[in-house]
């Protein structure tokens, strides 16, 4: 074939786009589907009976407060002095724009603003206590707290938080003497409220009857270290490839391998902007994945690694080394 006719042929439509004019064979699609459905159903029923499914018990605030009271009080102290994870998070919970993660100069975390407002002092400490203020001690403490100005409140809370961090075992009972105002009483009462189960209800209900939003109890739980300790014991931590894992010996989410991989390596593992950086990188790679047909190099891999020669070996065996043209359509029953 001359170069001229080759050029003409290049203007002809892509042969892979032409309806197949070659031989066909009977192929029962509906039967194939029914067989697939039966096989998958059987496999499902058998695998479920063999292996069951994991169900690690939910952690209540009550359980946390009973199992790790020092961690609970330490967390409550950081909510009160505004140094907890939630209190310093930035959008969508608080108004601190500087807290946002950055991708270069951009901080998309800030763009939607504060859509899920969290006031760690009111939401996690004061309001639950006010709702349960039965004892005169607590009533007096709350009165002292609300009567003080914001500066005084902050002084008490910070002093208590610092002293607690320095106490042996961060045990509130062993804290050094100092001017903490009503904070020690508030902390003790909050612990008691939590241990009784009252805080679970108070944080969830938020004064309502019906509720399906667990934002506040979950944020409070995650501000402590007890939940994380339980998770890390099961290899679920971010730097333990945790995203891929499941509790116990169950298979997890193997398809998240690339997403979690970046969290294991620098610069993502040590950067304060790790989440934003991994997310944007994965968004880019995801786009490449979706647009593979248009990505030079990647779309040529099937030619370079010719697994297709194995898949279509019968076709190639029939067509190559013999007649180069496709066989005419054979209609067979």
């Amino acid at each position, binding site marked *: *074939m001359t170069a001229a006719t080759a050029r003409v042929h290049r203007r*002809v439509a*892509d*042969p*892979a*786009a032409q309806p197949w004019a*070659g*031989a*066909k*064979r009977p*192929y*029962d*699609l*509906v039967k194939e*589907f029914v067989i*697939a*459905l039966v096989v*998958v*159903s059987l496999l*499902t029923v058998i*695998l*479920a009976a063999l292996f*069951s*499914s*994991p*169900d*690690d*018990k*939910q952690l209540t605030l009550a359980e946390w407060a009973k199992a790790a009271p020092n961690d609970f009080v330490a967390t409550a102290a950081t909510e009160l002095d505004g140094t907890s994870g939630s209190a310093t998070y930035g*959008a*969508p919970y608080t108004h601190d724009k500087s807290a946002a993660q950055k991708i270069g100069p951009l901080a*998309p*975390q800030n763009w*939607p603003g504060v859509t*899920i407002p969290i006031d760690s002092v009111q939401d996690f400490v004061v309001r639950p206590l006010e709702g349960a203020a039965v004892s005169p001690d607590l009533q007096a403490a709350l009165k002292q707290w609300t009567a003080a100005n914001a500066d005084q409140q902050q002084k008490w809370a910070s002093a208590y938080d610092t002293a607690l961090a320095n106490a042996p075992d961060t045990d509130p009972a062993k804290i050094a003497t100092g001017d903490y105002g009503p904070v020690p009483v508030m902390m003790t009462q909050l612990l008691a409220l939590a241990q009784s189960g009252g805080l679970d209800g108070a944080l969830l209900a938020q004064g309502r009857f019906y509720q*399906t*939003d*667990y*934002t506040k109890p*979950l*944020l409070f*739980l995650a501000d402590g270290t007890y939940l994380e300790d339980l998770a890390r014991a099961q290899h*679920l931590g971010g730097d333990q490839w945790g*995203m891929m894992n499941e*509790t116990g010996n169950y298979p997890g989410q193997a398809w*998240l391998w690339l997403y979690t991989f970046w969290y294991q390596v620098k610069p993502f593992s040590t950067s304060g902007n790790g*989440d*934003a950086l991994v*997310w944007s990188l994965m968004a880019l790679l995801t786009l490449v994945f*979706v647009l*593979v*047909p248009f990505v030079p190099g990647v779309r040529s891999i*099937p*030619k370079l690694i010719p697994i*297709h020669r194995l*898949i*279509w070996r*019968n*076709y190639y065996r029939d067509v190559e080394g013999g007649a180069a043209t496709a066989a005419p359509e054979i*209609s067979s029953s």
Partner: protein
Amino acid sequence: MTAVPASPEDAALDREESGGWTGWVRRRALRSFPPDQLLPDKQPIYVASWIYVFGVATIAAFIVVLATGGILALRGPAWWHESSLGHYVNSTHLWSVELFMAFMVIHLWGKFFMAAWRGKRALTWITGAVSFLASIGTAFTGYLTQQNLASQWVSTQAKDGLNSVGIGSYFNVLDFGQMLMWHIVLLPLGVGLLVVAHVLLVRRHGVVPPFPPKDAHDVNSTATEGSVPA
């Protein structure tokens, strides 16, 4: 039987532009998907490998996922924690999802190495890829709505990734009610529609043919491999 001769009105109805919107939709549908193309009983001779069953296996698994999810829905989201039968049904939902994801990935590997986007089939690849991503999202919301320790951990971790790019402001993984509705309504519907589009595209364009054979006389064969479809 004697045929009744067509009246002038009948003749008018037979013309192309008749039938209003209904007629237009019917004609378009039949043009795009003639019945024996929509449900053929033959396939090109090269469709002869076990790798080809993983598409239908994925769809079958999807149906089992929907069915087992539907049974879970009958007694509500807390049932499986309180009942052995409920726990068993939950297990069938989990394992049908594992099969679904496994078959889908094997199908993806096969389609990648066949470069199945060739011949104007880029949209087939794209709908497949987006189905995969939507399935991951569906599985993710499933993990969030288990209401156990895993849900508590996954949600409080995942929020950081989503918040860091602003998505968390609208898609609150700590909100059980919202996540459950995404999981049982919006995402399965999305996946379902994508799968329907994906399969219709395969029926429309046919199963991708092999790369041209090695001793093909058509020089054009190498020029069009992996070409960008129009």
